[in-house]
Structures are given as structure tokens and as C-alpha cells.
């Protein structure tokens, strides 16, 4: 790299990476500091805040609440998203592009607005799920499924449909042809999509804002509520666990699919 790049571009790029990544590094340092708050230079390394997090009712229960919610979201998003991606890659009906945009649209529309409209909808219809894990589940599925569609769609784009047609012409039922031929070759894309769905749900804040109840909150909401008043290093310790989870997920995704190709499609 860099043989043709002027040094100033490289310097600016390095500075940009620092700006992007420094806050994440600071969270790790704040969670591992020996002092009450993170100072410069740091006061030394200790696991006291990690221990405090592991004993804290608020953060630990929020962490597991988020984990459970993310798993529930992942299951539904993966099934619905994979099926929809199959349709979008196979069908040639005219509104296909519009339908794809429709399914991807929640990612870029304001989460607060969608969360609010779901909250009002749950109250107005008397569904009784306005501030429960079920309401959160529905909101999170809306925001996680687009990632499954994107990832599985990429896997399907490089799958040769004629293989499935060959299986069909040899007498396999549509379901058998799908299970034995198509699914094995897109399964890594499906797995990567489900990891994305998990992580998007785990880090979701904006949609959760209107939909979560004070005593059972996802981790981002619990951290937000404490950060409005003061900085507790045990929140940073909770952050470390989230950082580990996200990093592991992205590395795993990279093993499953070619990240470069996925992102630059």
C-alpha cells in the first residue's frame, strides 16, 4: 500500500481512524482503571469495575435482557429475512426493487419515530405489549431483518440457480431441492446475516427508547439512564463485554463470508 499515496493522505487517514476508534479504547481503559474515574495518565490496571459489573443488578440483568432479546430477534429475523431474500432473488415481478427498498427502509428511517408509532399503536389497539419484551421484539425485528436480507441477498447473488433447477428436473421436490442444494451453499451467508441481526438488536437504542419499561431495560437504555447523571466505571465494564461480543461477531462474520465483497457489492 501507499506507494502512490501522498503522505498527507495517509496522515489524515490515520488521524481519522484515531477519531473513530479512540472512544472505544477509552471505554476499555475506563472499565479497567484502578481509580474512581479515568484520569490521564491512567492510575493502573484493576478488575474492580469488572467485578462491580458482575455483581451489579442493573447492568448485569440489562446485559442478559439484551442478550435474550437479541436471540429472539435473531431467530425471527433470520427466518423471515432469508425467505424474503429468496423471493427477491428469484422473482422477476416488476415491483421487486421497490419491495427490496421497502424492506431495507427501517435501517435509515428515524428509530425514535418508528418506536413512537409502535408505542402509540400498541396502546391504541389495546394489545397490552406497549412496554414489554414482546413490543421490543417487534421493533427490533423491523430493524434487524434488513441486515439479513442484505447478507443473504449477497450470498444468493453468487449462487447458480441452475443447480437447483437440475435437482428439480431430476425429480426432487422444491423443498428437497432447496434443502439439499440451495441451503448448503448459502448457509454461510445465512449465518452471517443472523449474527448481524443479533448485534443490531443488541446495540439498538433509538427504537427501544419508547418501548422499554423501567424495570426491564436493554443494556443501551440502562447505560443511557445512568450516564445522564454520572459516569460509573461499572457501565464501562459492561461496555467492555459488549465490545468483546461485537468484535467476536465481526470476526466470525469475516470467517463466514467475504466481508470485502459483502460491503462493496
Amino acid at each position, binding site marked *: 500500500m501507499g506507494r502512490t499515496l*501522498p503522505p498527507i493522505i495517509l496522515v489524515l487517514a490515520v488521524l481519522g481512524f484515531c477519531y473513530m476508534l479512540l472512544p*472505544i479504547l477509552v*471505554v476499555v481503559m475506563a472499565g479497567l482503571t484502578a481509580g474512581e474515574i479515568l484520569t490521564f495518565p491512567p492510575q493502573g490496571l484493576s478488575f474492580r469495575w469488572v467485578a462491580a459489573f458482575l455483581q451489579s443488578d442493573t447492568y448485569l440483568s440489562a446485559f442478559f435482557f439484551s442478550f435474550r432479546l437479541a436471540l429472539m430477534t435473531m431467530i425471527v429475523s433470520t427466518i423471515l429475512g432469508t425467505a424474503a431474500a429468496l423471493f427477491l432473488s428469484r422473482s422477476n415481478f416488476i415491483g421487486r426493487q421497490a419491495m427490496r427498498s421497502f424492506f431495507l427502509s427501517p435501517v435509515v428511517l428515524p428509530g425514535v*419515530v418508528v418506536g413512537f*408509532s409502535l408505542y*402509540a399503536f400498541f396502546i391504541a389497539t389495546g394489545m397490552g405489549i406497549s412496554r414489554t419484551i414482546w413490543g421490543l421484539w417487534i421493533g427490533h425485528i423491523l430493524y434487524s431483518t434488513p441486515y439479513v436480507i*442484505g447478507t443473504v441477498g449477497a450470498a444468493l447473488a453468487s449462487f447458480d440457480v441452475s443447480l437447483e433447477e437440475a435437482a428439480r428436473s431430476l425429480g426432487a421436490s422444491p423443498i428437497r431441492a432447496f434443502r439439499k442444494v440451495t441451503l448448503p451453499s448459502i448457509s454461510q451467508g445465512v449465518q452471517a446475516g443472523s449474527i448481524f441481526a443479533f448485534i443490531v438488536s*443488541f446495540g439498538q437504542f433509538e427504537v427501544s427508547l419508547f418501548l422499554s419499561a423501567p424495570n426491564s431495560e436493554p443494556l443501551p437504555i440502562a447505560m443511557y439512564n445512568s450516564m445522564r447523571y454520572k459516569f460509573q466505571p461499572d457501565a464501562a465494564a459492561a461496555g467492555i463485554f459488549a465490545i468483546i461480543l461485537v468484535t467476536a461477531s465481526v470476526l466470525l462474520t*469475516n470467517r463466514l463470508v467475504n466481508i470485502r465483497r459483502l460491503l462493496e*457489492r
Partner: protein
Amino acid sequence: MAAPPAVRAGWSGVRPRQMKWLLVAPLFIFFVVFFVIPVGLMLATSFNPSAIGPPSLTFELTVDNYIRFFGRSNFLQAAGRSMLLATVVSFITLIIAYPMAFAIAKTRHPGRNTFLLILVLAAMQLDMVIRLYGLMVILGDNGLINQLLMGLGLISSPAPLMYNLLGVVLGLVQFSLPFMILTLVGVIRGIDPSLEEAARSLGASWWRAFFRVTFPISIPGVLAGSLLVFALSISSYIVPALMGGFRVGVLPIHIYQQVAEGARFQFGATVAVVLFLLSATAIVIYTRIGARRSGGLA
């Protein structure tokens, strides 16, 4: 392995063309029930007379809420501030992201290239609240920057780096960077390097070749990335709430205050409709530009 005959007959009775629709039907119904109808109800609610308390949709239609929104200077200012903020953030994000995307796109070594993309993707996927925690530890009155500057004796009292407009801008740029980078990397990599080489071989300096050849070709990507960042940052609640300390009144903050604190669902819906339209407009233009290179994830 043989399936029960009844099932087989059932499947072969459905023509493949119709079966394809069964694949998309569950998600489509889910989106209609939990996305289209709620947003539609919100739109309808915004045309109901303002009241305090849980929403109950009536057929009494009025534009009073919109008259109030566009008649009161503080809401109009909030809309203006939101748009200005999102525009400024798009511009700053573009300037910071372009060299980063350029360096990533020109990294030919596959391992290094993947490593850089993993960093961007991990930053993008990490919960924004956690990233803001780090940013606030850096920028706060007792934060790392102020400790450093005061320790060096450069300033005597903490510089106000957050709980103001500056803090919100810094937070939104942090939020938007990965989205802009991923959009630009795809576009820059799609540019045929032989064009730049041709310009160079004809005697152009690197910078001249860049500004006359490479950059102009990347302009559609630049526009797409900027619109995406505009839509994302105008919608953010968490960044203005934490980095602005509720002192920077933008539209998402007003929605939450109207509904959660004032139980004014109808007026909250009006503010929400305005925000929804602003963000959706940016996204429609973004799609029109044909940002197909930005990938399905952006």
C-alpha cells in the same frame, strides 16, 4: 425420506410461481402490520385535535397541530437547527472519511484491507451509547483533553467541549463515520485506476490527477454518502441527548418530550411526521442517485 403423499400432492398442486409469494408473504404481512399501519396511524393522529393522555383516534380532522408547529418559533427553530446540524455533520464527516476511504480502497494487500474493513464494521456495529461513553470521558470538563491541557498549563479553566453544539457535532460525526467510509470505499474502488494512471503519464501531478480525474468520478458516491449521513444524523436521539445535555433542542428530543413527558401524542406525532418526511426525502434522493455501490448494509 418419502414425504406423506398428502403433503406431496399439496405442494405439487401449487404452481412454483405462486409458491414464491409464500416466501415473502410472512415478512410482508409483518411489515404492513407493524410498520405501515403504525406509521399511518401516527400520520392520522397528527391530524387529530391536540389532547393530553393516551391516544384515541377520532375522525375529527384538523391541521391545528401543524399550524402550531409552523407558527411557534421554537419548533421551527428546532427543525432548522436539525437540518443545519445534519448538513454540517455530513460535510465534516465527508472531509474526515474521504482520506480514510481512499487509504482503505488503495490498500491492495487483502489481509490488511480486510483488517481495516473489520475495524470500520466493528465501530459501526458497536452500540452508540458505549461509543458516546468513551467520547464523553475524552471531552468532559474533567475529561482527558481538559486534564491534559490544564496539566500543561495551556488553559486555566476547562474548555467547554460538550453539552453544547460542538459536542453534538463531534458525537454525530463519530456516529456517521463508518457509514460514510463504507459508501466511499465501494465507489473509490470502482474507479478504473488506469484513468488516473493515464493522467499521470500525461504529466499531471498526483494532486492534479486526483482533483481532475478521481474525485469528479467519485462525486455520485460523495452525494450518496452525504445524504445517508444527513438522514442518519437528523434522526439521532441519543447523540443530542447525551452530548448536548438536552441543551441542543432538535426534533427527536422534542418528540420524546412531547410524548413521554407531556403525554401530548397528537402534537408529538406532528413533530414525528415532520422528522420522518425530512429523513425520508434525503433517503429517496439517495436511492435515486443510484447508490447501488454502497452495499445492502448501509
